[in-house]
């Protein structure tokens, strides 16, 4: 059994009298991309800061590569790359100088590696410009570059797609998938936008008001919520109802929502046609992840 790269156990965080995190548990294995999703103020960034040792942990445990972040900070953080909140860089330095500074903090990062990473994030042309001249998207890329410079096996990104254009999001997505597959990195991405993560995360954790409400494999979730729901557009709704299995609902004047196995659809169509019911269209109702999760989280109330 593979050891998890990151393991959080029952994390609590209290600031003043307010309990911000009420027992967060997470596990990430190599090659996983975990989407950490929650509405604003749910505690995503706080969790990330606890994991990175930026804030003190009230109770609970964080282990990165089997090292406790509290007791063995230097070893635990050794193979972690992160962007917290905004990609914070030294504005008055060039992109290359920024990376060089970070490189100096580790052993064995040579200029070749820096060039390699720059190429990976696609900043070759602008790397010698001052960061203050960069667009937000370019800063995000540079942020990723500084995070993966030392070949970490755990990458923590806090809202990395903020401020990126669709193309930027796409290339970021490709980059992350590549890192997870080829370098076997474990990646934790937080976001409030589920649709964005849908396409490349293989696991999702949903956090709401400091509690994890749901953790599952994305494939399972998709299967579960969108299984066998079809919308039939017919002329005579009432007549058609009689032929349909239980659980069918009339969703509008000419539409029926029917839950059946996909294999049974042709049979049902045949039956309806035999009864001279006109069928205009049959569509599979694919519930988006977002809809599914909205149902589960039921909206967030900032306490």
């Amino acid at each position: 059994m593979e050891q998890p790269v990151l393991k959080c156990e029952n994390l609590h965080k209290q600031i003043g009298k307010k309990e911000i995190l009420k027992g967060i548990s997470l596990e990430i294995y190599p090659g996983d991309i975990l989407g950490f999703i929650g509405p604003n103020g749910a505690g995503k960034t706080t969790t990330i800061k606890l994991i990175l040792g930026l804030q003190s942990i009230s109770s609970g445990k964080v282990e990165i590569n089997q090292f406790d972040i509290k007791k063995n900070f230097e070893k635990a953080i050794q193979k972690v790359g992160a962007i917290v909140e905004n990609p914070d860089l030294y504005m008055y330095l060039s992109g290359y100088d920024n990376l060089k500074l970070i490189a100096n903090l580790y052993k064995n990062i040579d200029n070749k590696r820096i060039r390699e990473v720059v190429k990976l994030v696609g900043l070759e042309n602008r790397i010698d410009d001052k960061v203050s001249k960069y667009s937000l998207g370019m800063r995000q890329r540079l942020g990723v570059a500084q995070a993966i410079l030392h070949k970490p096996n755990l990458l923590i990104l806090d809202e990395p797609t903020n401020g990126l254009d669709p193309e930027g999001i796409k290339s970021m997505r490709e980059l992350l998938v590549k890192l997870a597959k080829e370098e076997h990195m474990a990646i934790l991405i937080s976001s409030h936008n589920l649709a964005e993560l849908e396409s490349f995360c293989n696991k999702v954790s949903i956090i709401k008001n400091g509690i994890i409400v749901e953790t599952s494999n994305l494939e399972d979730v998709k299967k579960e919520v969108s299984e066998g729901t079809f919308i039939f557009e017919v002329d005579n709704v009432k007549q058609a109802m009689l032929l349909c299995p239980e659980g069918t609902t009339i969703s509008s004047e000419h539409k029926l929502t029917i839950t059946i196995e996909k294999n049974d659809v042709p049979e049902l169509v045949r039956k309806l046609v035999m009864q001279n019911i006109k069928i205009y269209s049959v569509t599979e109702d694919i519930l988006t992840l977002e809809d599914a999760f909205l149902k589960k989280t039921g909206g967030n109330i900032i306490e």
Partner: protein
Amino acid sequence: MKNELIKLLKKKSTYIILIITLAFMIFSNFMYQRNTKQMYSGNYSDEDLQYYEEAMPSSSKDPETNDMYISMKSNLDMMKLIQKYGYNSWQAYVIQTYLGNDSDLYVMNEHDYAINPTVSEKEYLVAKENYENFVQKLDVGDWKHFAMAELERVEQDIKTTSDEQKLAELQTQKQVLHWRLDKDISYAESFLNNCLRRYENHCNIVYEYEHSNNHEYSEKQEYYNSLEALNTCKYYIENNAKNIDNNDNRSILLDLFDNYELFILIFVIMIAGSIVSDEFSKGTIKLLLVRPYSRIKILLAKFMVCIMVLILFITFIAISQYLIGGCIQGFDSTSVPAVIYNHNTNQIETMSIIRYIVITGVAKAPVYILLMTLAFACSTLFTNTAVSIVIPLLGYMGSSLINQLALAFNIKALLYFVTPNWDFTQYLFGSLPEFETLTIPFSIIVCLVYFAIMVVTMFTVFKKRNIKNI
């Protein structure tokens, strides 16, 4: 973690301050050079002459102002004579000594202008002859003649005086005159002439102190100062020192820490006050804290960089002052070593200028390091750059105020405060500190305690700090 240094070197503000410092340095060197030209002027100038001419009563005939007219006329005549030879010439001094009140000149004027002259014709003739002889000697131009005459008179007086203090003064005068003749130091205004005068003055102060019983601390300090001045002057005279003044390159270098103290402090405080808080306000602290270094190491690295910056900046100032001062005022003054009177051994010592700067720098270091640490601690505690720059600067400005308070009202409790203790130049070469009861070990302990308090607080706070959202 010498990364921090690289970061600083690439900041714009660092260069701005450096350039301002350089500009100030060039400017002040020009100012000093101008002052140099005006050094060692005599007692009178053209302005005085003009003033006398205007203030003199218009006529000698008015009985009420007749006396005043005569005395002012005598003065004016004397000044005109001085003007003839130049205000800084040796003649100027001689004329002033010989043609004071009741001089031949006065007699002559009394005879010429007084409504009721008290001077007989015979007296007048004698005075006139004396005066003409005197002017003739001035013209021939041998000051040694006058020095010999003065020496003779002093020797005469020594034989006749019984008053001990008077005798001591005369002995000093004799010594000075001997030096004058031996070393060929004329009465003309010059560095060595000035040394002779100061020597004479300080000798008298020292004598008075040594022969009085009531010794207050401030008097003792004055005595120490005089002792130092006296011996330094003596050294210069005996060694035929070249022209040394308080405004040349050498003196600026020796007083480096007084001249540029504000710049050193502003620079160091600016760096120390922003080095931590800037990272917080820009959010880049997170970039550093998620690296495999403990927070203590990170803070320590930043602190070390501050100390390095302090040393580098002082070196920078010393070197650039040497070069700029040298270019503007010439390099020759810097070939003279520093001259110090050591109160412990009661001897004059010479050392190279560099060594002197290093010694005073070490003695001054507690001031800089403590203020820098204060800035650094504020930077760490408040994570606000403005606050952490302003507080130490206020502290520096307030320090002299606190010292004066302690001095004026004799508040013993304030001696446990850091400001009376942190300047160790007051102990250098055995001199007396500003406050009577202070000793070196005491001051070291006080400084260390304050330093420790700041360092411990900032490290504890930084270690425990939660990195808040920005």
